[in-house]
């Protein structure tokens, strides 16, 4: 029904650590809401230290898939293993940094207080929390606004704070749902360079996007459409496979021929 391109590990990135299981391992995962199938039979493996992008139109099931991997939602069928553990697992959540599509922040609290709150959720001890707080704030360029109540933040600032919260406890796996929406180009570049730096240090990153040039910077991307993973591979592979010169074109050719 669909063509799966290179559904195994990408050889392009070559970053997968030999040790242990892949960071994310999905087997025949499905999810439906009110009888309507949102995800169908998704198989996907993401290696440790990989920067993986999920690309797809809104409503295609990206966020649902991400929530399943983060262990917030439960699949109806199939098996999910993350960092060598069966999902859902409470202990696993300590190793995951999650950033939802909507900015889930406490408007009455300042940026710093939001970070402190989530730091406590991960049981970061005082000295480490203070140090990580500074680091996370400076990564997203919010150091000078740390004391402001979040209710007065712009949309972009909230997005950045959400990202800072996801980075706070230095998780092994970062799951970011549309991390750069509403962020201006200059800051987007700086956020991307921090993401790349995190990957260099071995953090596995799974993100969703519909910005094509962001997809181009991922080690591998997965194209998702109407709940089905239609293609998985490095940007170069996908372009070659579809004979397209841009990811955008490849996306249309690989995903669109279904109907």
């Amino acid at each position, binding site marked *: 029904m669909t063509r799966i391109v290179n559904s195994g590990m990408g050889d392009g990135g070559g970053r997968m650590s030999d040790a242990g299981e892949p960071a994310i391992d999905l087997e025949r995962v499905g999810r439906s809401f009110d009888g309507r199938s949102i995800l169908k039979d998704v198989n996907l493996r993401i290696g440790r230290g990989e920067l993986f992008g999920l690309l797809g139109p809104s409503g295609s099931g990206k966020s649902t898939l991400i929530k399943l991997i*983060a*262990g*917030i*939602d*439960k699949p109806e069928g199939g098996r999910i293993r993350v960092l060598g553990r069966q999902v*859902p*697992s*409470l*202990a696993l*959540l*300590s190793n*995951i940094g*999650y950033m*939802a599509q*909507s*900015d*889930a*922040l*406490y408007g*009455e*609290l300042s940026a710093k*207080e939001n970070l*402190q*709150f*989530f730091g*406590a*959720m*991960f*049981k970061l001890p005082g000295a480490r929390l203070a140090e990580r707080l500074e680091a996370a704030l400076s990564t997203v360029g919010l150091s000078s606004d740390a004391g402001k*109540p979040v209710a007065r933040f712009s949309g972009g600032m909230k997005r950045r704070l959400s990202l800072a*919260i996801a980075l706070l406890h230095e998780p092994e796996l970062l799951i970011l749902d549309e991390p750069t929406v509403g962020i201006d180009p200059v800051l987007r570049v700086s956020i991307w360079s921090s993401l790349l730096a995190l990957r260099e240090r071995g953090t596995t990153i799974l993100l969703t996007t519909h910005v094509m040039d962001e997809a181009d910077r991922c080690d591998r991307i997965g194209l998702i459409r109407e709940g089905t993973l239609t293609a998985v591979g490095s940007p170069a592979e996908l372009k070659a496979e579809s004979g397209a010169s841009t990811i955008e074109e490849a996306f249309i050719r690989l995903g669109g021929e279904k109907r």
Partner: protein
Amino acid sequence: MRVRALTLRICRQFIRDKRTLALLFVAPLFILTLVYFIFGGSGSPPKIGAVGLPNAIVSGLEASADVVDYGSWDEALEDLRGQDLDAVLALRSGKPALLLEGSDPSRSRAVLLAVSALQRQSASQALQPEISYLHGKAGMSSFDSFGPVMIGFFSFFFVFLLAGVAFLRERTTGTMERLLATPIRRQEVVLGYLCGFGVFALAQAALIACFAVYVLGMYMTGSIWLILLVNLLLTLTALTLGTLLSAFAGSEFQIIQFVPIVIVPQAFFSGLFPLDGMSPWLHKLTYLMPLYYGGDALRGIMIRGEGFGGIAADIAVLVVFSLSFAALNVVALRKQRAI
């Protein structure tokens, strides 16, 4: 650590949301004051007509009532019928008799208080009048009687509303999902909410109780600490019930829709209204109403001066309500996260 952080966060959010804070603290006082004025409150001292009473008694009565001397029983009776008097106290064939106008329970109560004060004052005289009523009957309730239930009702109502909306907002704004993407346990979430809201529930309970007793002068013979304890338990029940029901609401508006379903029946069954005429099977519903137990305990403490032993059963039931709602909350959070 997580529970403490959650508690602190809720307190901070509360303190910065001035309007909600005002609703929690000022609104109950405002309504309670309104009720107080509507149902008479202390008002002016009662007017008692005296017929053929010794001077000692008249001057004793004057400490807490306006006393008007009448030459004959009939004259006094005429003024009583015209509602110029609240009661007539007379010596009839050597025995003291008290006739109350009786249509306003709060006035009757004031008269009875004045007379009983006189009794205590002059114990030797053994002034025990035969009490009769022109209208109504003895034991009609008034603000003093349903005031204690009102105290509990307001605590319950406002905490229910705020906790329900706060919990719902966590869900609709996505912060609940975000929170549950951290390794916090579901029982830690519920416990954190209990503590965070508990701080404000306790402050509110203290404020309402002190306002009613010390400012409005509500009749009170028991211990203020017991009142606070019962009020706190009642608000914890409201808190856990509010957060539990918010799991079944999709918007703030739907939380409001729980008011006629959950709050109003409780008001009916809480003892604010007499339930004697109710059919027995309907009467049994009272046992399902947390407010009934709270109201019963508060009334016992304030009016009958009951100690801990007298209200222990009510307290136990409220604790069971709170604990079971809290446990159900932990289960309901499964809807948000599987583990």
